C-alpha cells in the first residue's frame, strides 16, 4: 500500500502551530514515517508548483493553519482544498481568525498608513507603498494583496474538521495523529464532517480545578492589580477569565498557572460568539440591580472587545468592526 500523503501549510499565522507540530517530539518522526509528506513549506523545501502538479484529492490529509488575509492565502486555501481528500483547519487562526483577525478591528487603509508612514521607526517621505503588480525590464513582478477583512478558512472553502487552539496543545495533536493513523490503517470510518478534533465540546471551566461558589463581584480588576487566591475561580475574584466562553481541551493550562484563560480554544460546542457568551457570564457575576452601578462596573472592564474576541473576531457573529 502506498503511504497516505500529508500536507501542512501556513497562511496568515505566526508559525506557532508549526512549532506545536514539532513539539510532539518523537511523534513527528512517526508522522514522517507513516505519511508521505508532500507539502510543508515551513520545514521542507517545497514549491507551490509541486502542489499544483498533484491530482485532485491526492493529498490524504492537509493540516491548514493560518487565517485567510491575502490573495495568496486565498489561492492556497482553494488549491489545497482541491488537492486534499480531508482538509483540516488546524489552530485558532484557521478556525476562528485568531490574532491576525484582530485586523478586523480596523481597516486595511489604517494598517497600511501606520506601517508605511506613521509608525515611529518609519521614514518614508515619498509615501512608498507596495505595488501588487509591477513591470520591470525582466518581466512582471507580483506581490500578494492584503484584504480589508480577515476570514477564517471555513468562510472561504469547505472544511472537513477543525482542530482548535493557539496553538493546539501537543498532547492533543498526538491524540489526533493516533486517531488518524488508526482510521487509515484499520479502515475505520471517519468522524462526521465538521467534527472538532483534539478538544472537548464543553467549556474550559469544566476542566478548571478552581472552586466556584456563586460569589458576586462589584468591580473588575486587571491581573497586575491582584494576587489571585490559588483556589477560587478567577472570574469570581474580578479577573476577566474567558473560561466560560472557551472550549476545553488544553486542560485549563493558564488558569492552573494563575492566569485567566484568554480564550484561545475558541467557543465551545453550541456557542457561536465568545463575546456574547462572556456578556452572559459576566452578567451572572455582577452583584447589583442598580442600572447606574451596573454601568460603572462594566465600564471597568479593560478593553472589552479586545479581550472577548482576542482569538475569534473573524469567526464571531459580527465578524468585523464597522469603521
Amino acid at each position, binding site marked *: 500500500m502506498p503511504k497516505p500523503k500529508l500536507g501542512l501549510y501556513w497562511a496568515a499565522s505566526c508559525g506557532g502551530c508549526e512549532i506545536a507540530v514539532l513539539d510532539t517530539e518523537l511523534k513527528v518522526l512517526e508522522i514522517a514515517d507513516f505519511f508521505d509528506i508532500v507539502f510543508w513549506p515551513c520545514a521542507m523545501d517545497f514549491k507551490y508548483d509541486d502542489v499544483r502538479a498533484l491530482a485532485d484529492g491526492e493529498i490524504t490529509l492537509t493540516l491548514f493553519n493560518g487565517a485567510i488575509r491575502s490573495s495568496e492565502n486565498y489561492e492556497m486555501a482553494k488549491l489545497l482544498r482541491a488537492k486534499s481528500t480531508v482538509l483540516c483547519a488546524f489552530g485558532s487562526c484557521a478556525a476562528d481568525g485568531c490574532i491576525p483577525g484582530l485586523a478586523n478591528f480596523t481597516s486595511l487603509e489604517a494598517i497600511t498608513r501606520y506601517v508605511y508612514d506613521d509608525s515611529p521607526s518609519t521614514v518614508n517621505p515619498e509615501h512608498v507603498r507596495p505595488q501588487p503588480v509591477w513591470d520591470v525590464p525582466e518581466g512582471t513582478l*507580483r506581490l500578494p*494583496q492584503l484584504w480589508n477583512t480577515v476570514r477564517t478558512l471555513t468562510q472561504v472553502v469547505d472544511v472537513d474538521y477543525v482542530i482548535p487552539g493557539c496553538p493546539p496543545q501537543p498532547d492533543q495533536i498526538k491524540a489526533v495523529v493516533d486517531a488518524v493513523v488508526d482510521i487509515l490503517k484499520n479502515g475505520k470510518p471517519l468522524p462526521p464532517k465538521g467534527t472538532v478534533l483534539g478538544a472537548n465540546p464543553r467549556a474550559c471551566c469544566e476542566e478548571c480545578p478552581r472552586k466556584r461558589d456563586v460569589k458576586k463581584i462589584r468591580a473588575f480588576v486587571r491581573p497586575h492589580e491582584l494576587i489571585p487566591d490559588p483556589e477560587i475561580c478567577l472570574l469570581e475574584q474580578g479577573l476577566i477569565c474567558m473560561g466560560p466562553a472557551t472550549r476545553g481541551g488544553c486542560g485549563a493550562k493558564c488558569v492552573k498557572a494563575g492566569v485567566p484563560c484568554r480564550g484561545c480554544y475558541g467557543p465551545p460546542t453550541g456557542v457561536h460568539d465568545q*463575546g*456574547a457568551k462572556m456578556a452572559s457570564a459576566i452578567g451572572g457575576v455582577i452583584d447589583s440591580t442598580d442600572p447606574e452601578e451596573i454601568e460603572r462596573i462594566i465600564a471597568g472592564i479593560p478593553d472589552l472587545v479586545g479581550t472577548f474576541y482576542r482569538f475569534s473576531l473573524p469567526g464571531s457573529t459580527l465578524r468585523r468592526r464597522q469603521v
Partner: protein
Amino acid sequence: MSFEPNLVGFLCNWCSYTGADLAGTARVKYPPNLKVIRVMCSGRVDPNFILDALARGADGVLVCGCHPGDCHYVEGNYKCQRRLPITRMLVGEMGIDPRRVRLEWVSASEGVRFGEVVSEFTEEIRSLGPLALQEWAFDPAAADAQLAHQGGEHA
C-alpha cells in the same frame, strides 16, 4: 423611497408580550416595523440573539421584559438588566451605534406604553438610518477577480 427600519423585538411571555397583545385588542396605533419574537423571559435573551439579529439585517433590536421585581421567574429580568448594558457596550465598540439595542420594561397592562415604546424606537432608528454592515459576507467573486489580477497564481 423612505427608509423603513427593520426591527426585531424579544418580548417576554408573561408581561411584555401580553402588553403587546393588549395594544392590539385596545387598537393602539403604532408603526408596523417591529417583528416580535416571544421568549419565555427577558432572561432568556442570549446576547448572541441580539448580535445575530443585527448581523442578519435588523436595524435595531428591542428587548422587553417585566418591570424589576415582577419577573415571573423572579430574577430573569435582573439578569437581562446586567447583560444588556454589556451587550450595548460591545455593540458600540464594534462600531455600531448602541442606540440600536434597547431594553424597556413593559407590563401586561401597559398596552399604550408598548405602542409608545415601539413608535419612539422606530423613529430613533429611522433617524439613525439603515445598518449596513461592511463586508460581513465573504464575496468569492471579488476574491477571484483580485486573484486573476495577480496573474492567477502566486510563486
